[in-house]
């Protein structure tokens, strides 16, 4: 009996994921209504997702949250990069070209400023904790950009696996704190129009962080923020191991 039930739930993983996420959304919007919608339903749903990810990670000891539990394997497909990027592209439908053009320049500027600033913050933090070699500083600096830039930099420069792991951790902290903090800080930070969203995407850079942060704040801002954020990791992989490393090496080498 239990076997048959488990077969029914694991036979079509993606369908099970639709049902599970549907239930999370329903419950979250109910709770949001209890708070008079002062907290956005999607923000509650995303936090539920993160809590599930924590539980899944603790139970299995693996890296992909709840999706490592066989029952919830479909969550991995549903929330994986393929469908995520497809859904991000779909949000661009109906966006006005004029708004996009207006947001373009400040967005690009934000991207460059943030890449420099994140690398500096990461590298200096590394230095303060005793990782004073330019390779280690550049790797952790890359991690403060995104959790992909860090390991790419570290691998290119030949950093130790301990330092690469630290850079990934810094990037994961960044991505998850962007998800959680954005809805709370959006108003204070002036994140309420397309140009600000493009700037935000360029400043935060993490695709998953901005995707979730804007979804929980105002879904209409998603395309602008996502658009700039998708350039961030590629740009970081280009400049941090090259230009970034050279500058750090000249200053601290």
């Amino acid at each position, binding site marked *: 009996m239990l076997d048959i039930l488990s077969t029914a739930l694991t036979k079509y993983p993606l369908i099970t994921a639709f049902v599970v996420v549907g239930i999370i959304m329903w419950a979250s919007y109910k709770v949001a209504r209890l708070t008079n919608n002062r907290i956005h339903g999607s923000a509650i749903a995303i936090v539920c997702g993160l809590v599930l990810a924590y539980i899944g990670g603790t139970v299995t000891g693996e890296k992909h949250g709840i999706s490592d539990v066989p029952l919830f394997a479909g*969550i991995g497909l549903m929330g994986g990069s393929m469908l995520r990027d497809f859904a991000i592209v779909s949000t661009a439908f109906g966006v006005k070209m004029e708004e996009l053009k207006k947001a373009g320049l400040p967005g690009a500027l934000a991207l460059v*400023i943030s890449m420099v600033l994140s690398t500096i913050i990461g590298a200096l*933090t590394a230095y303060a904790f005793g990782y004073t070699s330019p390779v280690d500083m550049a790797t952790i600096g890359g991690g403060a950009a995104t959790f992909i830039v860090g390991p790419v930099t570290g691998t290119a420069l030949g950093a130790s696996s301990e330092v690469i792991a630290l850079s990934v951790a810094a990037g994961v902290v960044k991505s998850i704190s962007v998800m959680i903090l954005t809805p709370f800080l959006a108003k204070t930070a002036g994140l309420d129009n397309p140009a600000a969203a493009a700037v935000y995407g360029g400043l935060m850079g993490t695709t998953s962080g901005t995707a979730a942060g804007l979804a929980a704040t105002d879904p209409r801002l998603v395309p602008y923020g996502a658009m700039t954020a998708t350039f961030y990791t590629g740009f970081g992989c280009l400049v941090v191991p090259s230009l970034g490393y050279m500058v750090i090496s000249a200053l601290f080498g």
Partner: protein
Amino acid sequence: MVIYGVALMGGCMIVGTFLGYLLGNLVGINANVGGVGIAMVLLVIVSRKLMDKDQLSKLAQDGILFWSAMYIPIVVAMAARQNVVAAVNAGALAFIAGLGAVFAGFLLIRPITALSPKSTLDEDDNAAEAKAPKGAK
């Protein structure tokens, strides 16, 4: 047909990914530089052109809007597969580096946005409205 919209979007994504990797290749890295962003710009341009010529049927548009409406649930699933344990257990170094970058970012949103021409969300935009969640559906 609904599939026309989905296929149009998929086509934009494939072209975007191709251009993203091409761009990465040109600058000497094996990475997708902005492929999704390029796909979004393509979708904006192509769908606008088709709609101006009345070539994108209501059903085809629904094919795109379905995915747009699935955006938040997909993001929730994405949140549920993050490595939250690693973030929670990260040492002080990772916390300071990651959070420092985030707070610096939030502080800079206003000053950098101020450099751009004023922009606002258009409230009558049909597509945008369809995107905004109206309570629990």
